[in-house]
């Protein structure tokens, strides 16, 4: 049974519950203003930090917007140029390839490490700390270290490979797009594996032990338990890491900027590095902003596909 208060009657009919006369407009306006006032700070923040910059960015992308010089409106010319820019599309393809490989490798290595340290056996804490340390140091510092260690004359990598007899002469690893990419992928995995490990380890530790016991009784071996129990129950974690890793890789900039500058030639030119060069090297902020919008659309599309795949699963 429901009861209706006079106030609710007033809300539903727009009339006073007692007298049946029209509600005074001033009181309703006051309510409205109160609501608007309470929303104002949030609306203001969103407007100032999201809406206005976004609209402004759209406008910039429709102009030549040089950092220095006269601004001229040029309609959709930047977008037309972007679609014909072979260097830009080359960087998109390269970035997507890099994102797929580095995301997959990062999760695979992180998973193996998580398997290693998920139980609280002796030494597990030390391994966790050691593996997580590069993530704390950060990719910027480690990229500078990598430059030194990948050098052909004095770098540790060359010295190691020469001493092991794997190579016979100093090799300039960063002079070849493929070998430079492999090293940057490995560096990214080295830095990010600790984070992936911690996330997956916490997921593994939340799986009830009884499930493994049941699987064991059903005759499942060590690896079967891993693939039939652990992996399905970690899907949410793996999905999260995939989306985060992929978006992070699509936006990769720091390690490429420091280690290769996108070279040799355009051999390691990521999209973000190209956009940066256009904006702050060539001073073409208008064109760079248009490129950014194209990247946003592509990244959003790919992320939506990822979410859709995960949902269907």
């Amino acid at each position, binding site marked *: 049974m429901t009861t209706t208060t006079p106030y*609710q009657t007033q*809300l539903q009919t727009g009339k006073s519950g007692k007298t049946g006369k029209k509600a005074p407009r001033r009181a309703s306006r006051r309510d409205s203003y109160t609501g608007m006032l309470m929303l104002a700070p949030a609306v203001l923040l969103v407007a100032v930090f999201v809406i206005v910059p976004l609209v402004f960015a759209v406008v910039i992308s429709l102009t030549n917007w040089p950092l220095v010089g006269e601004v001229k409106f040029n309609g959709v010319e930047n977008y037309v140029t972007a679609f014909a820019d072979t260097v830009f599309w080359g960087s998109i393809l390269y970035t997507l390839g890099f994102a797929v490989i580095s995301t997959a490798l990062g999760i695979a290595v992180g998973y193996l490490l998580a398997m290693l340290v998920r139980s609280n056996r002796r030494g597990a804490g030390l391994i966790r700390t050691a593996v997580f340390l590069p993530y704390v140091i950060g990719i910027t510092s480690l990229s500078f270290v990598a430059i030194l260690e990948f050098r052909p004359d004095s770098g540790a990598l060359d010295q190691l490979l020469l001493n092991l007899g794997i190579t016979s002469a100093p090799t*300039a690893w960063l002079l070849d797009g493929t070998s430079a990419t492999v090293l940057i992928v490995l560096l990214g995995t080295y830095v990010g594996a600790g984070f992936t490990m911690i996330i997956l380890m916490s997921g593994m530790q939340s799986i009830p032990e009884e499930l493994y016991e049941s699987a064991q009784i059903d005759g499942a071996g060590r690896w079967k338990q891993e693939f039939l129990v652990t992996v399905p129950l970690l899907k949410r974690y793996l999905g999260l890491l995939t989306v985060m890793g992929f978006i992070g890789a699509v936006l990769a900039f720091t390690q490429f900027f420091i280690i290769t*500058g996108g070279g040799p*030639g355009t051999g390691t030119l990521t999209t973000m590095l190209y956009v940066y060069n256009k904006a702050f*090297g060539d001073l073409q902020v208008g064109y760079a902003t248009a490129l950014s919008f194209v990247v946003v659309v592509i990244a959003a599309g790919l992320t939506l596909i990822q979410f859709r795949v995960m949902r269907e699963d």
Partner: protein
Amino acid sequence: MMHSPPAGLRRAQNSPDGGSRDFSRRSALMLGAAAVAATFGLSGCSAVLPETDVAAANFGKNPSGTIRFWCRATAFKPAQLIVDKYHRAQQAVRIDLTVLPEGQMTTKLATAIRGGSVPDVVAPDSVTTPVFSTRDALTDLTPLINGLPYAEYLNKPLLDVASFNGKIYGLPALSNVSQLFWNKELYEKAGLNPEKGPGNYAEYLEHAAAVQSINGVSGVTFTGNSAGILGYVIQPHFWADRSPFYNGPLGHQQAAVLGNEPLRRTLELYRSFYREGLAQPGAEADSGAAWGQDFLKGTVGLFPGSYDLVVGSATPEFLDKLGVSAFPGPDGNVSQFSGGAVLSIPRGAANPGAAWDFIRFVGELEQQSELAALGWYPVRSDILKTGFAEKFPLMVPGMERMNEGFAAPTTLYTQLTNTVQSPWLAMFREAVFSQEALDDVLQRGHEETARVLKVNQA
């Protein structure tokens, strides 16, 4: 129990005349239009700041206050030296010196101009000055520079690079000049005349081969993987015949790779050095981290390099063994890269009068002599009339040929030469280190140079 929306909202939704809904929509539309109008209004503005009239009678008279001076990291030592001297010389003007990391000047200065808060004096790399002079970002200093008593002695290539449409936007302050060095001791051992370096490509190849014949010695050393160094020491070879790989007026330049015979012969020369084993081991991978160190150890005969590097690192005994000259062209002309810094006053500077007083101070002969002691070439040829030659003998050839140098007058030096993506680096590496036919390399180099010019000059 039913949940109802707040009264105001509900009334607006149910309003028979839709007045409130219209009001909301209208408000939203107006707000949106205002936002777009505001942003378009902003886009209508430009980053061209007001220019000071330097021809005004009272300009630069009784300078005082503080000036902000930006220089790049490479020029920090000479900048600090001059600032300290200026502070000792007078009390009215103080300088706030900011050193920018290498390669950051263009971005930082452009951002400062866009933000409307610029330094009073800037000393970018000379090849960066055209980026700003062609965009109405610098103060026209023509009457002031032409009025200097030593104007006729100023470094002409640097003045050219600071000029646009007949106006001069900066005063050359210091210079670094690329030179070809040779080891006289090794020359003697190889049976060559130690007092005479190569005068053309045939001699260059011959000298390198002769020195190479000495056990454990390379004929020549060069960095095969540094765009900046390769521009600095290789391009002067074909500039000697006035044949850069791009030409035309600033803002309308064209690729000039195909049909450029001096360029082709330069690439062939270095290809020969590499293929015939006359270059140092590892030339292909050399990114310049240890640039010229093998030459300084005495294991290389010829070094296309930089005076400040050689003089700053070599022992006095080794310096006595050195010969130095400008770079030979294919058939006997010579050239050298006239790099360095040009001092400019950005438009919108807060204290341009004091800024000019400081710039004028830098150009005086006493300061120029002190810069030479730090390894930087003076920018005034009249310094040769003083005791300069005795104090800095290895600088003399470069100073004597000061006005035969080249300072790369283009707004796109970075994009064309100075980055890992530049067509210059790709063309040099493919021509010298790959087995590809030179015609194909040049064709691709031409197309890529044209593409870079097109997208950046649109």
